[in-house]
């Protein structure tokens, strides 16, 4: 459907994106996830035709569109700033793309009304964008980019700038619209929650290079490298060198002995270990299990349905655990943390 093939973009000497390749299948929701400056926006703009690639090809529905101007590509795009035309009404904004795509006057009128219905704003057609709230403007922006049935929908951080509650609401809403219209979607964000909650596939980008292209589950459970492990989700981190004891692979991190899930790993490898907070169990008493460490609670953050405990281990490192039961423990209490060997991510 969309094929980005060895896309490279230099701004003078500065490399924004280096040899990036990925594909999107028909109807798929793909997210480009990465910190600011990782090249995700440049990639999106290149697909739209707003940035000229230094190298590489972009194919849409089998056609090479690399040298086509944006207006010849049949792409829908919603911008972070919404980019609604301030001198036009909501209706005129939506009609703009339809007119430019050569729809007849009658079709334009019908489709504008349908689009307003689609985004639940049938009564706002005569408003100017400036009279709408941030969330409403984003919905109009989406309606405008979908009205002429583009081959692909590009979303450039549309939820950034909305408050948390609205953001979560808009995520569900955006997913619903995407399924309803069944439009192939490429979403760009620096927000991992956006990426994990909405996408079929996530492309993690850093320094202009793809770090991992995978399902959200795999990105979280089996990160490909330390960058992905640290950028997506929280974790407790250990480092050390692999040795074998009694046929088990273990890592000594200062005093701590950590058993690894897989014994096939070679000796003397330097590894980073990550344990997700929901995999760490906390209790006031020791169980004598493997991968069990003593620590002192430094912070308890109540997240409503669960609590996030921060603890300092004996060697001074920090561990992070989620607990759904609210144990009778408090800051400065001594506790024991343990995690099963098979939940350790080894990189």
């Amino acid at each position, binding site marked *: 459907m969309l094929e980005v093939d060895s896309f490279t973009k230099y701004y003078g000497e500065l490399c924004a994106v280096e040899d990036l390749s990925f594909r999107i299948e028909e109807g798929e929701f793909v997210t480009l996830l990465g910190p600011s400056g990782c090249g995700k926006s440049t990639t999106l703009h290149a697909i739209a035709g707003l940035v000229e690639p230094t190298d590489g090809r972009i194919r849409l529905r089998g056609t090479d569109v690399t040298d086509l*101007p944006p207006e010849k590509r049949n792409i829908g795009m919603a911008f972070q*700033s919404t980019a609604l035309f301030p001198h036009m009404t909501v209706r005129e904004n939506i009609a703009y793309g339809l007119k430019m795509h050569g729809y007849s006057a009658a079709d334009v009128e019908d489709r504008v009304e349908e689009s307003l219905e689609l985004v639940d704003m049938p009564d706002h057609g005569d408003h100017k964008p400036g009279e709408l709230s941030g969330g409403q403007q984003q919905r109009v922006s989406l309606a405008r980019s979908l009205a002429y049935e583009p081959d692909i929908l590009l979303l450039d951080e549309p939820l950034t700038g909305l408050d948390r509650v609205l953001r979560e609401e808009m995520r569900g809403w955006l997913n619903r619209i995407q399924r309803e219209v069944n439009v192939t979607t490429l979403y760009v964000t620096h927000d991992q929650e956006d990426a994990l909650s909405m996408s079929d596939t996530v492309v993690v980008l850093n320094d202009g290079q793809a770090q991992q292209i995978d399902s959200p589950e795999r990105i979280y459970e089996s990160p490909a490298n330390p960058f992905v492990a640290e950028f997506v989700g929280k974790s407790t981190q250990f480092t050390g060198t692999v040795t074998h004891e009694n046929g088990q692979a273990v890592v000594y991190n200062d005093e701590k002995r950590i058993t690894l899930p897989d014994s096939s790993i070679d000796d003397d490898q330097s590894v980073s270990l990550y344990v997700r907070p929901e995999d760490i169990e906390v209790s006031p008493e020791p169980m004598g299990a493997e991968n069990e460490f003593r620590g002192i609670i430094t912070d308890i953050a109540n997240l409503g349905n669960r609590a996030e405990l921060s603890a300092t281990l004996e060697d001074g490192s920090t561990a992070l655990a989620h607990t759904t039961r609210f144990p009778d423990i408090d800051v400065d209490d001594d506790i024991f943390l343990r995690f099963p060997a098979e939940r350790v991510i080894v990189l």
Partner: protein
Amino acid sequence: MSVQRGGLGRVTHIIGEGLEGRIANRHLALFGLGFVGLFFVLPILLLIPESLNLGSTTPFESYRRVANGIYVDAFVRSFLYGFVTTVVTLALAYMLSYFLAFSTERVRTAMILIIVPLWIAYIVRYFGILLFLSPAGPLADLTGFETDLLFTTPAVIIGLANVYLPFAVLPIYNSLNAIDEELVNASRVLGAGKWRTITKVIFPLSLPGLVAAGLIVFILAAGSFLGPAVLGGPNQTMIANVIAQAFLDNFNIQFASALAIVYTVLLVGLLLVFNTLFDLQEVLGNI
């Protein structure tokens, strides 16, 4: 405090102490308003009694004379030249501003080139054009082609457009530069080519700057004195030249005042018409 204050610092300090708590922001406005009132409004109002022949049986004698053919011509010519100059200047300024806002990284250099002429006295610039266009001037020397432009209407328009161009570039550039680049991107992605993006998005959004520029240039151009005096002939006389002649050459203060009053009334009337057509408040309020 042990620090010894210098002479000037001491004086301002004493003045500051004296004013402390007695002067509010609205007092500051009074200085500006007072200046305008004393040196602008009052003199204009004084023109009204000056223009009337009070005490005679024909107090409006001067106004009757204003309705004479040659003076009517000068009025018409002023507004016509003002209009043509505005159109020419806006067209040039728009292209220049568009280039500045969207096509060059060297905005600062270009801006300096546009602003520097403002530092040079009008009269010098008009004489420059006069020399350039004259049959023995550089244009004739370089091209071997002697133009008949000097002392004609086109010469005056060229001069006026040249002198007022910076006044038009600044507001137009400002409004073009304020257009979010994403709007231009959005227009392109929505299927509009470059040209349609200009006509449907960029131009409408730059209208406030264009209207402001148009007003400034029109008012300045219609009231020009030096341009027609240096570059025009007897057939290019504009209203400011007529007023100056009546006032300075003929010492006919009454007639000069009448001309000035009529010109002011016509100009204000024209602006009111313009206002109803374009709703200036809304347009200028967006700047």
